[in-house]
């Protein structure tokens, strides 16, 4: 079997679409700013300065990119199998909670034992939280979409309960634990900045995600499942096991994201510590076209927008920082529209080829080119359906 040829068309889909979408979304944001009488150039300038203006601000951007990156890597892995882990937000919360539990309950042992144990606990908690929808999907045919979404709010309420009852700090005005001792936090690895060791973990996670998806049997099985349950079964994939494993691994990445956020960035557990990172991560996974390198770039972009939003707030120019959320969402909207147009063009071409019997060389079918079927925008969610035919394709 020969390697799939990289056609110009495929490069366009994988690289040009996300880039064009980001540019368009920034332009949309600029138009909105103009509409409210703000100067978009100076607004984007203050955002850029707040995100990359100095080593210090760059380290803030990286810190804001880390949880989004980790969660998005996991979401992308599950998506390769056609599974929608839209509950990463909840897995982030249980990850942060489990890490906190280890830190608060830790006996007086030396660095880095507690820290490592806290990271492991967070990762495992995320894996369990992710595995629940996987088990329900595998054993009862219930869509992971609704169940993983429901578990988000259970996780958030669990966090709030812990912060207001067992872990409550008397006389504090905001539900949060006391700041952790420095030996229980991820150390700063670049003095003078806020860059913590979580960045190294995130970088390793990118490599791990690449190995898992592109260089392992597990990755092959994920893709086989993504191509259709029945076909995967014929190919010898133990479907139920892979469904649970994919969701658990996906949850593990998000749980680790929560650990890194709590142990590295925040240094304590606090209410609402993830303001939607897990939902944004879905957008990041899609803009990054499920490729670890693409996800890394998209996560840094979102981190920069977030850091830039803080810059907008302090710039005193009266520019609403909500422009950032709009820009992020519009980037995905444009990606989805471009993929839809691409899909329609492919269908039209396939139909023409079927009529004429001619297959042009550059008209490579994206699915055959190793593209992920889950990103075929016509793919289904199979909400609650145990119907295998209805699982992936209409």
């Amino acid at each position: 079997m020969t390697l799939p040829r990289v056609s110009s068309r495929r490069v366009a889909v994988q690289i040009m679409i996300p880039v064009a979408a980001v540019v368009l979304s920034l332009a949309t944001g600029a138009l909105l700013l103009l509409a409210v009488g703000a100067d978009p150039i100076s607004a984007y300038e203050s955002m850029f300065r707040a995100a990359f203006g100095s080593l210090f601000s760059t380290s803030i951007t990286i810190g804001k990119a880390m949880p989004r990156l980790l969660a998005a890597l996991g979401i992308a892995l599950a998506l390769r199998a056609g599974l929608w882990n839209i509950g990463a937000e909840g897995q982030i919360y249980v990850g942060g909670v489990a890490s906190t539990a280890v830190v608060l309950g830790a006996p007086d042992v030396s660095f880095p034992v507690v820290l490592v144990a806290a990271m492991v606990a967070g990762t495992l908690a995320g894996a369990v939280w992710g595995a629940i929808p996987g088990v329900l999907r595998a054993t009862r045919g219930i869509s992971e979409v609704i169940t993983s979404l429901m578990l988000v709010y259970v996780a958030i309420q669990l966090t709030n309960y812990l912060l207001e009852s067992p872990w409550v700090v008397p006389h504090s005005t905001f539900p949060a634990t006391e700041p952790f001792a420095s030996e229980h936090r991820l150390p700063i690895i670049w003095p003078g900045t806020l860059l913590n060791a979580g960045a190294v973990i995130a970088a390793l996670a990118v490599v791990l995600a690449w190995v898992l998806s592109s260089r392992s049997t597990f990755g092959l099985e994920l893709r086989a499942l993504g191509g259709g349950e029945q076909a995967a079964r014929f190919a010898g994939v133990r479907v139920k096991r892979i469904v649970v494993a994919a969701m658990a691994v996906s949850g593990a990445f998000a749980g680790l994201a929560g650990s890194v956020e709590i142990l590295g960035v925040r240094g304590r557990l606090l209410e609402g510590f993830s303001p939607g990172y897990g939902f944004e991560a879905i957008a990041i996974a899609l803009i990054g076209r499920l490729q670890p390198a693409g996800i890394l770039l998209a996560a840094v972009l979102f981190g920069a927008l977030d850091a830039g939003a803080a810059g907008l707030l302090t710039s005193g120019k009266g520019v609403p920082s909500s422009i950032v959320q709009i820009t992020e969402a519009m980037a995905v909207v444009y990606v989805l529209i471009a993929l839809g147009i691409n899909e329609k063009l492919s269908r039209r071409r396939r139909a023409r080829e079927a009529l004429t019997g001619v297959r042009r060389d550059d008209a490579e079918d994206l699915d055959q080119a190793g593209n992920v079927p889950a990103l075929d925008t016509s793919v289904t969610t199979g909400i609650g359906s145990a119907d295998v035919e209805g699982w992936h394709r209409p």
Partner: protein
Amino acid sequence: MASAVNEEYISLLLVAAVSLAAPLLFAAIGELISERAGVINIELEGMMLVGAFTGVWGAYLSGSVWVGFLAAAAGGLLVALIHGVMCFVFLANQVVSGVVLNILALGLTSFGLDAVFGSSLNRSVGTLDRVRIPVLADIPFVGPALFSQRLTVYVAILLVPATWWLLNRTASGLALKSAGERPDAAEALGVRVMRVRWVALMACGILAGIGGGQLTLAGLGFFTPNVTAGRGFIALAAVVFGKWNPIGAAAAVLLFATADAFQIRAQALGIDLPYQLLVSLPYLATLIALAGLLRKMRPPAALGINYLPD
């Protein structure tokens, strides 16, 4: 403090529960109609949020709460139309589109709040008065809750039997359900699946928008960022917990709203129960129901699957 639980307490609890249920009921009925036609709206929360905002905006500009409700319906409809274009025209996955539209709704409404009202200024608008139905409102316990409510609450309650009748007793209802179960077969039988789905989705947007308006216009009288605070997801859960049936969804909404009303009052009674448990009830109950521990669940077979006529 058991003595505090008397007729008046229960009566007030039910009044609060029905008031809390009304926005959820609008959204849940809308989502139910849409899901029965095969379209899932994770962005139900976003529809409510946009409706909550445009409702206040409309009422502020016009000085009329009813114009506000029209604007709320238009706001929800707008989100539905974007979802429809994304999913039906550009073939986007319905779940992805929904997640993204929630982020967009949050951003747009916060942006709009700054742009229209100015960030620090919290302009409030008039709200609806309660309309008391004589005699019926004097029934012990349930009278005040059901018969001394704002006009829109009565509309929400009447939507439940109306939707049941539409789904189970009319040809349109049959066409709608067939579009959500076997779209290909429905199309072969002459049902125009895409048209049915568009109508159902638009109905959902309008109802969820009104639900958002109910939140801000019937009670609060102002808009704050993320004022819906997850109510769209609770409505989504109610549809599932109610087994995709209007009566069931309404019962689920009432159960969840009663838990919420009780949660607010439990602390005053000195009941030592973590209120977070009650807040999680909609999600936990739905998970348990879905896991089949309570009863068998069967969603519409083609739910969330884009229909592609070839």
